[in-house]
């Protein structure tokens, strides 16, 4: 669970918000000429990153307004909240050292911590 700082109402529990998925996907304007592949890209394909992710939220049980948020999907750290139509701000995040590794703290996945090649001799991480 996390607490989200709504730009209009302040800090509220996650359960007050509804999720709008990946941000900054706009419907293509030239839709008549689009191929099926381009449609599939717009409708279905998603970035789904392990790391910094721009997403939309709606404060459904509050001001009922939409806003954007940057969150680290590897740790659930909320990095920035910004308005609809705005560009995501620059942020720093506690990212995994390897593509599918775990962040230093906060991932909750203690069975599969990052293994550096140099650490492999002592058995790597893990509980």
């Amino acid at each position, binding site marked *: *669970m*996390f607490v989200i700082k709504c730009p209009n109402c302040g800090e509220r*529990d*996650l*359960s007050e918000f*509804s*999720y709008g*998925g*990946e941000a900054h996907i706009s419907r293509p304007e030239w839709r008549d000429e689009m191929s*099926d*592949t381009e*449609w*599939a*890209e717009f*409708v*279905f*394909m*998603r*970035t*789904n*990153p*392990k790391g910094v*992710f721009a*997403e939309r939220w709606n404060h459904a049980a509050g001001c009922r307004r939409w806003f954007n948020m940057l*969150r680290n*999907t*590897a*740790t*659930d750290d909320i990095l920035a909240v910004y308005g609809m139509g705005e560009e995501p701000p620059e942020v720093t995040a506690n990212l995994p050292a*390897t*593509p*599918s*590794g775990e962040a230093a703290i*906060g*991932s*909750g*996945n203690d*069975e*599969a911590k*990052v*293994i*550096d*090649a140099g650490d*492999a001799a002592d*058995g*790597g991480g*893990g509980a």
Partner: protein
Amino acid sequence: MNRYNAFRLIREGLTGQKGWEPAWRSPAEPRPSYDAVVIGGGGHGLATAYYLAKEHGMTNIAVIEKGWIGSGNAGRNTTIIRSNYLYDESAAIYNHALDLWKGLGRELNFNIMMSHRGVLNLAHDEGEARQLKRRVEANRLNGVDAEWLEPDEVKKFCPPINMAPSIRYPVIGATLQRSGGTNRHDAVVWGYARAASGLGVDIIEQCEVTEILTEKGTVTGVQTTRGAINTPKVACVTAAHTSVMANMVGLRLPVESHPLQALVSEPVKPVMPCVCMSNAVHVYMSQSDKGELVIGAGIDPYLSYTQRGSMDIIEHQMASLKELFPFVSRLRLMRQWGGTVDVCPDASPIISKTPVDGFYVNGGWGTGGWKATPGSGHVFADLVARDEPNAIAAPFTIDRFVSGALVAEHGAAAVAH
């Protein structure tokens, strides 16, 4: 591989238990090259490796696992087995899996504690009852065992359920798949690992794939935290990290990774004779052989790789559960955990070749992957070995998101994904 049997148990008991060997070999380092590399040592990955070795003679292969085998979703699911899906494509693959489950313990020479105790899917209103009856008929046409139970039959089959007409969403009937049930997830993982290892498959734990090497659109190997491995075929079975792995070869997928939570109560004497699921109030429960009530429901709505979810999701499912099974209100919960599931927009999996030659994807199983484990591994091994999908795997290509031939099990499956 030493076989497990009663004679051996007695012999070891009389000779100080000194003759046992590890269930699977753990090579210190991967070999420099393999005929195929399976990324992901969960149930589906190990099953894929096992069937590659057993049915396709590909024994020079490796399973690469970044943690311990079975430490991801294979160790976090609620082990429910059923195949009562609405559409022909889904019925084919899940029933294929169910057929394999039936003989798997014997085949692997490992007790997977398979229990065909029956799966109930409850109906709470007329509309849902009609939809579930339609699914029963569709199941029967596909050779999936299914039947409709009237309220008195539901109560007889599952005595602890609250059938009072006064509850907020009264139970007005249910579908039953008698061949459905539960098994033991760790045993399945260990059984597959042991059998695959016995056929020559290398199982490399604590080794993370950091890069997939390609040349002119063809896979040439993988880079890992324990060095590079040359291989012409990479089979990606990484569930939560499917998008992350696909990204290594520049491929975008329609999957999103969500937390999915489950919880267990303190152990009690046998009270729950079957698996009972409700789509409308959205909760399900069974009882493990240890006596714990195993409880689950749906995903958290947001994307996350953290393997933990939110309390409001649990609160919602416990409220539903308490109304359906009032006796649970005085039980304490022992453990609660999350896994990360990769969900496809149509709630059906991806078992597919990709535009990168030699890179195969098996993922997008969402919340319902466990029940498919043997079937998934079986048809995926076939795809990896022959480079062509068989009739069961064919509908689950990535291309369906371009062609529009979705297998839209969202809502059509017995429990909402």
